């Protein structure tokens, strides 16, 4: 009896837990081991053995594509694009999945890459340099060299540069929606300003003067604005800097230039604009209206602002309910040329992709001819220079006319020739966040432009140096 009892105790709660913990400890160690090297495929980028051709994909292959598009329109477009690709490349099937929306997409993609199960193709809104610098993307220069259409010179230089890191190309941009100033034709007309692009201000001073004509203030509250350059669309900052002869990040030197004299002058110019036309209080201005962009609920959309910045996609996406025009950005006091910024859709092949050749054929397709399908739905300016100018966005054609759609299309395509170099830093997101916060502090009168930009410069350079160190 006593023996039996003892036997029971040997297999009792403590023993069971001990066994379980022992087993799980081993599992934890094993898991830690895995965690310690989750990125086995992130060693030096593997180079493809042979230049790929369509024929190189001999047997039927199925590509996995982590797709980040989730809107109703894109759900309409994707099957058409993939269908067309599969028709042209009958050996390749594309299996696309949406691992999440917004930030959840990045989380899902990171988990897949870290887990050693990357997709063959991924779409990014985040700059490829951030991933490439951490060794998680495949360099595609050799593929491009022998590609039928996606050759290096087939893309706008600054736009292709946005996929490069230390001289190698890590993806293709299918689009590069350029930024511009949207104007309300009727409001400008009422002020005696022509809708002609040539008549639009060519300098910041002239633009500011034009803006002043529209500003109305009642009881200290801004009712109507001309142009509020400093609210929203912070992705345009590299262009604003370049317009004034400055630069935010110098990829050739791996150096930030945030606190240059030109940039300090740019931000001080904005503060003066805020003071001169909008009472100097950013918070009160923000309470009075949504002065950012051209989308519904924005002051521009509601006819309360004569001008606003936005990307090319807004031409169709924002459904602006009146006649509008798009204008080039004017030049700052220390600048010499108009620049635009752009925001691409990037297509990349993660390290460890099982079908890199087929993956390249797919991203080559979407970044060139395949984008025709997309562009008919959304006016996301193609980054491929060979894109047929006759392909127009149906919505814009229907809203206006083929001539007008061609005109807008040509404007954005041409403006991409003057796109600033951007999205090239391995700490791009961190730096953008830091710069935005710094400018916000200046506009809210918490710090001087010089101090805030100097702090941002030091922070971003330190983060960059640390990242480059590995």
């Amino acid at each position, binding site marked *: 009896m006593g023996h039996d009892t003892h036997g029971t105790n040997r297999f009792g709660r403590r023993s069971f837990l001990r066994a379980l913990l022992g087993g799980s400890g081993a599992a934890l160690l094993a898991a830690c081991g895995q965690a310690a090297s989750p*990125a086995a495929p992130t060693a030096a980028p593997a180079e493809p053995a042979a230049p790929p051709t369509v024929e190189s994909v001999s047997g039927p292959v199925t590509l996995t594509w982590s797709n980040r598009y989730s809107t109703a329109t894109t759900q309409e477009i994707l099957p058409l694009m993939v269908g067309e690709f599969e028709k042209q490349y009958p050996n390749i099937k594309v299996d696309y999945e949406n691992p999440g929306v917004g*930030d959840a997409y990045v*989380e899902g993609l990171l988990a897949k890459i870290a887990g050693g199960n990357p997709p063959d193709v991924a779409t990014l809104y985040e700059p490829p340099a951030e991933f490439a610098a951490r060794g998680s993307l495949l360099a595609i220069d050799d593929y491009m060299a022998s590609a039928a259409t996606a050759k290096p010179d087939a893309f706008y230089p600054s736009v292709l540069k946005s996929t490069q890191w230390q001289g190698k190309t890590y993806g293709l941009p299918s689009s590069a929606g350029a930024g511009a100033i949207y104007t309300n034709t009727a409001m400008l007309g009422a002020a005696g300003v022509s809708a002609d692009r040539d008549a639009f201000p060519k300098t910041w001073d002239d633009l500011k003067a034009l803006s002043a004509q529209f500003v109305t203030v009642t009881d200290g509250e801004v009712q109507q604005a001309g142009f509020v350059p400093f609210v929203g669309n912070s992705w345009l900052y590299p262009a604003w800097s370049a317009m004034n002869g400055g630069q935010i990040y110098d990829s050739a030197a791996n150096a930030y230039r945030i606190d240059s004299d030109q940039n300090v002058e740019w931000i001080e110019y904005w503060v003066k604009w805020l003071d001169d036309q909008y009472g100097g209080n950013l918070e009160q201005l923000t*309470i009075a209206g949504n002065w950012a962009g051209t989308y519904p609920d924005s002051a521009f959309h509601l006819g309360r602002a004569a001008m606003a910045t936005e990307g090319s996609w807004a031409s169709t996406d924002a459904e602006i309910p009146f006649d509008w025009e798009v204008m080039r950005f004017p030049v700052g006091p220390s600048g010499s040329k108009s620049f635009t910024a752009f925001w691409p859709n990037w297509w990349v092949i993660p390290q460890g992709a099982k079908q890199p050749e087929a993956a390249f054929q797919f991203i080559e397709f979407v970044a060139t001819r395949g984008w025709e399908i997309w562009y008919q739905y959304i006016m996301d300016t193609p980054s491929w220079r060979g894109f047929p100018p006759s392909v127009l966005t149906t919505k814009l054609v229907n809203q206006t006319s083929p001539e007008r759609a061609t005109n807008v299309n040509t404007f954005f395509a041409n403006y991409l020739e003057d796109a600033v170099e951007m999205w090239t830093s391995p700490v791009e997101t*961190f730096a953008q966040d830091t710069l935005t916060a710094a400018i916000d502090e200046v506009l809210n009168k918490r710090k001087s432009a010089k101090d805030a930009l100097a702090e941002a410069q030091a922070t971003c350079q330190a983060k960059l140096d640390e990242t480059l160190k590995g």
Partner: protein
Amino acid sequence: MASITPADQPPVARRAPRLSKQLRRDLQAYLFLAPWLFSLLAFTAYPMIASFYFSLTKYSILNPPRWIGVDNFVTMFTNDPLYWKAVANTAYYTFVSVPLSIVVALGLALLLNQRARGIGIYRTIYYLPSLMPVVASTLLWLVLLDPRLGLVNIGLQAIGLPKLGWLSSADWSKPGIILMSLWTGTGSAMLIFLAGLKDVPSSLLEAAMIDGANGWQRLRHVTIPLLTPTIFFNLIMSIIASFQVFGPAYVAGDGGARQAGPLNSLLMYMLLIYRNAFRFFEMGYASALALVMFIVLVALTLAVVRSSDSWVHYEVGRR
């Protein structure tokens, strides 16, 4: 009388040793517990241990972790201005929202503890917001708190007060999300208080009434002392929840993209962790941040538990 020796006994088939009843019962219990134990070890213990390890490394998720010792902690305390910003924002949120949520939840519970016609409907109405997904409720509040068109500002103007910037203002954004959290977060605490109130013996209240105590005195000297265990529980849960506030700050602060609210006024600690982990590829640093938060939370909880000796009154047994 002939004695029977063992050799004379008929052979008996040897039975396999049976598990004792106790052992069988234990095994059954562990079998049923196994899924939970497994998930505890795999999805809580392992991530915690891994996170501790990552906190001592430079780890981008995309590269293998590299041991850097305590560098992440040094950076956190000496070289990351956003760290102290996030600490200050979270401390503000905690010190304002926790007492406020307890007072509001207790007040609601007292009101809903009355005998009144249709009281069940009122209880349901007040509890319903806590069932609402945080993103949905935040989006709803974004509309309500819109500086120009939101009902809250329209109401303020109607009574002669100025419009507030709410989420567009560095000063008012945190009160804005505290308001949101009050709406969504008090339902559960209120329900627990309601259960606590049901446990207050009516004999004590009647005795106090006979002794001439008015409503406030009965509340102050009978109900609240007897509710202190419930207050204690809600306090600890609220502190933990307030440190982990993420959803409203994330949604209202535009996902922490570029910055979390005006002048980073909505940069809560959890959002800082999230941004470092998934926007800046700094999982090692994010793990260090998480570890510090864990230690602070444990310390705070222990402090509250220790302080409970002096203010929590149990009906039976030691105070």
